[in-house]
């Protein structure tokens, strides 16, 4: 009892102006490091600032040379023009949006489930052929995508998927990066947790859904970011011919390539294309931080 009282007394006394976050960090080191980080961050933030600013510039400023980074008289004219052009297109714009959203949502969701299922058994069970399969997946990541374009096209046309959404969605299910990422994260889950669940009578599927997946939440949120970014930016130009099945990015880039008169709209397009991945990114990033408190694994 005595000891406890002493500690309580000491606590308010220890409060300082600058609090050390952790006992083994020097304050000078902290200041120096974060100052450097801030400097680098300014350089890294440049593309975002530049892209957003040029979408706000009126036409005469866009052609100013040498170009200025910040807009002098910011306007939203470019966005307005863009919406007018979008309204005039032959296929309604909501259709393009539907196409992209459908491809992105279905592709990401399927990829998440299929890749995590595979990653789960590869990470946590020892079965003949598992290690070999995983090695093949890692190696396949390294083969250059350009030369596989033709065989890929042949396979998809044999399946009869040319000019359908599946030509983009189904190959995205099996992207090797997702499996690799999930497997690496699942390796951190202690085997004792899975065995405990097994003894309690959980089936393999239940272990996967109830125990493994909640514990690797940061991993699958990261996977969602990668997958959405990838599918959202997919122009689908090789596999899809009909105009009404093209994606939003494709349509926007058509507007963008409309020559010098559309420079302002092109800048607006860049911003719109960028915004969706960033929003998804912010949403999932805040989710990643939430899991920190809830996961209490101990081996």
């Amino acid at each position, binding site marked *: 009892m005595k000891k406890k009282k002493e500690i309580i007394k000491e606590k308010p006394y220890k409060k300082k102006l600058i609090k050390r976050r952790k006992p083994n960090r020097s304050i000078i080191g902290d200041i120096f490091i974060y100052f450097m980080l801030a400097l680098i961050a300014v350089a890294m933030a440049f*593309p975002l600032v530049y892209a957003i600013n040029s979408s706000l510039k009126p036409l005469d400023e866009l052609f100013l040379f040498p170009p200025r980074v910040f807009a002098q008289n910011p306007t939203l004219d470019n966005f307005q023009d863009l919406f007018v052009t979008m309204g005039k297109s032959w296929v309604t714009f909501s259709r393009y949006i539907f196409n992209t959203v459908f491809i992105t949502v279905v592709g990401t969701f399927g990829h998440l489930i299929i890749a995590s299922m595979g990653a*789960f058994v590869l990470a946590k069970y020892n079965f*003949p052929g598992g290690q070999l399969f995983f090695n093949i997946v890692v190696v396949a*990541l390294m083969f250059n995508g350009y*030369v*596989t374009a033709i065989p890929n096209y042949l396979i998809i046309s044999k399946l009869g998927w040319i000019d359908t959404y599946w030509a983009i969605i189904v190959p995205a299910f099996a992207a090797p990066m997702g499996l690799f990422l999930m497997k*690496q*994260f699942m390796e951190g889950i202690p085997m004792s947790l899975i065995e405990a669940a097994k003894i309690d009578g959980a089936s*393999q599927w239940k272990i996967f859904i109830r125990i493994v997946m909640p514990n690797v939440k940061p991993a699958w949120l990261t996977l969602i970011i990668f997958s959405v970014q990838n599918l959202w930016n997919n122009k689908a130009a090789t596999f899809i011919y009909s105009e009404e099945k093209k994606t939003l990015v494709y349509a926007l880039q058509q507007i963008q390539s409309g020559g010098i008169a559309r420079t302002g709209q092109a800048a607006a397009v860049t911003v719109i294309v960028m915004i969706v991945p960033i929003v998804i990114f912010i949403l999932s990033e805040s989710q990643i931080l939430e899991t920190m408190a809830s996961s209490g694994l101990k081996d």
Partner: protein
Amino acid sequence: MKEYLKKYFVLRRHNMQVTWKKMKQSKGCYLFLAPYAILFLAFYILPVCSSICLSFTYYNILEPPKFIGLQNYINLILQDDIFLTGIKNTFLIAVITGPLGYIMSFLFAWLINELPRWIRTIAVIIFYAPSIAGNVFVIFSVFFRGDAYGYVNAFLMNLGIIDAPILWLTNPDYMLPICMIVILWMSLGTGFLSFVAGLQGVDRSQFEAGYMDGVKNRWQELWYITLPNMKPMLMFGAVMAITQSFGVCDVTMALCGYPSTDYAARTVVTHLFDYGFSRFEMGYASAIATLLFLIMILCNKAIQRLLGRVGT
């Protein structure tokens, strides 16, 4: 000798039976893996294998492929001087930007991890921005313009360091360094994000145990606690760094032109693109891809071995 062989075969059969039993036991595992495995086989393994097969043929996309043995590889190594330039450039870029970008990704992710929540989210977005923004790196060509209006030239001339503008993107001496700067600037991508997520999963109690055991400064903590906990993500980051740094082509093509002066900025993938999609010699392009593939696998093996020693 005969007995020896017999024994060997008996042993073999026994091993096979054990494996078969194991396979039967882990039926559930195969069921879990099956959907991924089937799709992966169809859309990744099959195309890669057929590309490797195509590398032994002459194939111009229109006519059916003609088998020519190792001729593609022989031409590639013995006759194609531009390919050798490409190999040299790719190695230079990979050796410099690969490890640097990798270390940068980890360091930044690690430093950011200790910041308060909202600052961290903003910091992650800012550092990841060049990867989201697609081809914004094209504006670097405005910076490094060859005339006196380019920012870098104007800046240096105002300071009096140079008296005539430098042709940054046309002079072979400057092309590669500029490309490397731009690639480094974009290198906080996939690996960085996975590190950020991975650092969230490190068990807090281990750090507390570390303080008790006398971990003196942040670097000791990094080496003895954080890095060993991050090993799986480090492996992932390394593989991604290899694929990205050996696969460089769009930055050099956008900044230095395609083809660049004297082929000074040609990388292996640019060469592949040239043969595959400008000259339609798919067989030759496949041979280039296969060679690059082999180099990358070797590189990966070496790095995995290095990473195995982390934290010991």
